[in-house]
C-alpha cells in the first residue's frame, strides 16, 4: 500500500542570489512497512528530500502525496496537524526539549494532540518499557548519553502511532554500538508495529540495514534497489 508518493519534485534554493538545485525531478513511491535508506554523500540532497517528505519544506516544482492527499494544497495549520498525527521525526542531534524529562518529551506530541494527562503518561510509560528505556523516565536530556537520547527521540517519534517515521542521519552522533542498538530498535518497531521508516544516511552501518536503498547524487536518484 502506497503511503507516500513524490512526483517529479525539484527543489531550488537561493544561496547569495545564486540558484542552487538541491533536488532534480525526483519520483518516488514509499509503501507501508518499508525500511528504507536514502543514501548519498554530503550535499547530495538527502536532508532536503527528507524535509519535503516530512512537509517541513515545499518543492519548487512537482507534487508530494501523503496517503493520496497532495501536501501543497494544505495550509500551514493543516500541515502541522498532519505532521503531528501521521509523521514521526528523528533528528541527527536528537533534539529533545531540554527542559523536559525523557517521559515528558515522549508525552509532548500526545499533549499537542490533546490527549489527557493520565492517558498520555500511561502511553509514554508503555512505550518506554517497550523500548527498554523506562529507567530514563525522569532524566533530562543533559543527564543522558547520546544513545539514550536518541532512543527517547525514537519513542517520541512513534508515540502518536505515525504512519511513517523520517529519521535524518539518526546514528551520525552515536558510536557504533549505540548505533547498532538504535537500528535494532527501529527494525523491531518496523517488524512488530509495521511502522514505515525512512532514513537518510551516509553511514555504511545504516545503509547495510536498509531493506530498500535509494542512492542520491547531486540531487538526483541514481539507484533504487531492494536489498536482500
Amino acid at each position, binding site marked *: 500500500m502506497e503511503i507516500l508518493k513524490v512526483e517529479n519534485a525539484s527543489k531550488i534554493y537561493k544561496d547569495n542570489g545564486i540558484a542552487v538545485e538541491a533536488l532534480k525531478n525526483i519520483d518516488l513511491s514509499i509503501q507501508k512497512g518499508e525500511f528504507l535508506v536514502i543514501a548519498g554523500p554530503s550535499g547530495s540532497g538527502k536532508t532536503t528530500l527528507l*524535509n519535503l517528505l*516530512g512537509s*517541513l*519544506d515545499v518543492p519548487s516544482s512537482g507534487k508530494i502525496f501523503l496517503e493520496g492527499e497532495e501536501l501543497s494544497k494544505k495550509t*500551514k*495549520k493543516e500541515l*502541522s*496537524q498532519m*505532521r*503531528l*498525527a501521521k*509523521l514521526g*521525526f528523528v*533528528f541527527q542531534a536528537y*533534539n529533545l*526539549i*531540554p*527542559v*523536559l524529562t525523557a517521559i*515528558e518529551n515522549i*508525552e*509532548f*506530541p500526545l*499533549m*499537542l494532540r490533546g490527549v489527557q*494527562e493520565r492517558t498520555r503518561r500511561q502511553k509514554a510509560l508503555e512505550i518506554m518499557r517497550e523500548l527498554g528505556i523506562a529507567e530514563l523516565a525522569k532524566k533530562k536530556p543533559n543527564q543522558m548519553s547520546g544513545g539514550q537520547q536518541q532512543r527517547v527521540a525514537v519513542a*517520541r517519534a512513534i508515540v502518536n502511532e505515525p504512519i511513517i517515521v523520517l529519521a535524518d542521519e539518526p546514528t551520525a552522533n552515536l558510536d557504533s554500538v549505540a548505533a547498532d542498538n538504535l537500528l535494532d530498535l527501529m527494525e523491531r518497531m518496523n517488524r512488530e508495529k509495521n511502522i514505515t521508516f525512512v532514513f537518510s544516511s551516509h553511514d555504511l552501518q545504516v545503509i547495510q540495514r536498509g531493506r530498500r536503498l535509494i542512492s542520491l547524487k547531486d540531487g538526483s536518484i541514481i539507484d533504487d534497489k531492494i536489498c536482500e
Partner: protein
Amino acid sequence: MIFKIAWRNIWRNKRRSIIILTSIAIGLGFTMLYDCIVRGSVQQMLDNAINSHTSHLQINNAGFNSNKIITNNISHSDSIINKVASLPFIKYYSPRVLNFGMITSAANTSGITLVGIEPEKERNVTIIHKSLTKGTYFSTNPNEILIGEKLAEKLEVDLNDKLVLVSSATDGSVSSEMFRVVGIFKTNSSEFDKAYVYVPIKTAQKMLLLGDNISQIAAITDKPENINTYKSILQSKLDYHFEIFTYQELLPLLIYYVQIANDSMLVMYIIIGTAVLFGIINTLLMSVFERVHEFGVLMSIGMRNGKVFRMVIEEAFILSFVGTIIGFCLGLIGYYLLSIYGLDLSVFSESLSAFGMSTILYPKLDLGVIINSIFIIPITAILGAIYPALKAIKLQPTEAMRYV
C-alpha cells in the same frame, strides 16, 4: 504542559530571569509604596480640612456661603437643628456662629474669622480640642477664647492674656468684647491657625446681637462616601431657604488635588510599565533567538503556531506575575512599616503646614493601588511579549533547525 515548559524555560537562564524579576519587583514595590504615600498624604490633607473645620456637611441660609454676612443667619435654629439631628445618617452636628472681625492684643491686631461654638458639640465634629498645644478647652467662663499658635505669635500673647475682639453686629453696629486666652491650638494648616478663633456660641450670639440665631450647622455623617445621597435627603427635609454643601463642594481644590494625585500615579505606573515592557521585549527576544533551533524542532513535530505563541506569552506572564507578587509583597511590607511608624517629614514642617499637610505622613492602601500594582505590570509584560512571540511563530521549521 505548555505552562510547565514556559516555567522551566524561564529558569534556563537564571541570572537573566532574576535580573528582570528583581527590576520588576523593586520598581513595582517602590511605585506601590510611593502611591500609598501620595494617596495617604492627600487623604490626610482632606481629613485635616474636614476635621479642623469643614466637616462633611454644612447647612447655611441660602447665599451665606458666597457672602458670609452676619445678617444672613438661621432663625428658629432649634427646629432646624432638630430636623438635622433626627436624620439617622447624621452622627454628630454642631451649630456655629461665623463672622469676620478684628482681634487686638496689646502688641498687634489681626483680621480673623470668629467661630462661635457649643464646645461639647464641636468636640465631636472637629479636632480643635485635640489640637491644643497649650492651655485647655473651654470651661464655663463665657469670655474664653481659643486661638491658633501662629496668631498667638503675631499678637504676641500667651495663655491668660487678654484680647479684644471687634466685629459688626446684626444691627450694623460695631460690637466688641474682651476675651481671655484659655487655649492655643496648632492644626496642620498654618493658614487656618492664623485666621480662626473660637469662642462660646452664647457669647458670640450676645456680642453680635443674634439672639438664638446661628450662622451654620456643621455635621458629620456615618458614611462620607454617601455624602451626595445624604445631601439630597437633607435638602428634601429643609426648605429652599437653606443651602447644603458637602465637603467635596467646600473643598474643590483638595478634591481636584486628590484626583490629580491618583491620575499622576497612574502615569507613574505606566512609566514603570513601559520600562518593564522594554525589559520583557529584550529578555524574551534574547530567549527566542537562543532557542530558534528548538522552535524549529517543536514546529517540526507538529506544534502549531498558536501554542508556540502561547508559550512565549506565558513566559512573559510568569516573569511579570512572579515579579508583581514579589513587588507587591515588598510594597505591602513597606506600607505596613510606614503605617505603624509614619514617614517623618518634620524637617519640612513649615512648608507642609502651609499646604495643610501633616508632618508625619501615613500611607493609604486602597483598591486603586491594588488594581494599579497587580494589573499594569502583567498587562504591559504580555504586550511586550507579543513581538518576540510573533518572531517565534514566523520561523520556518527547516530554516530554524539549521540555525545554530
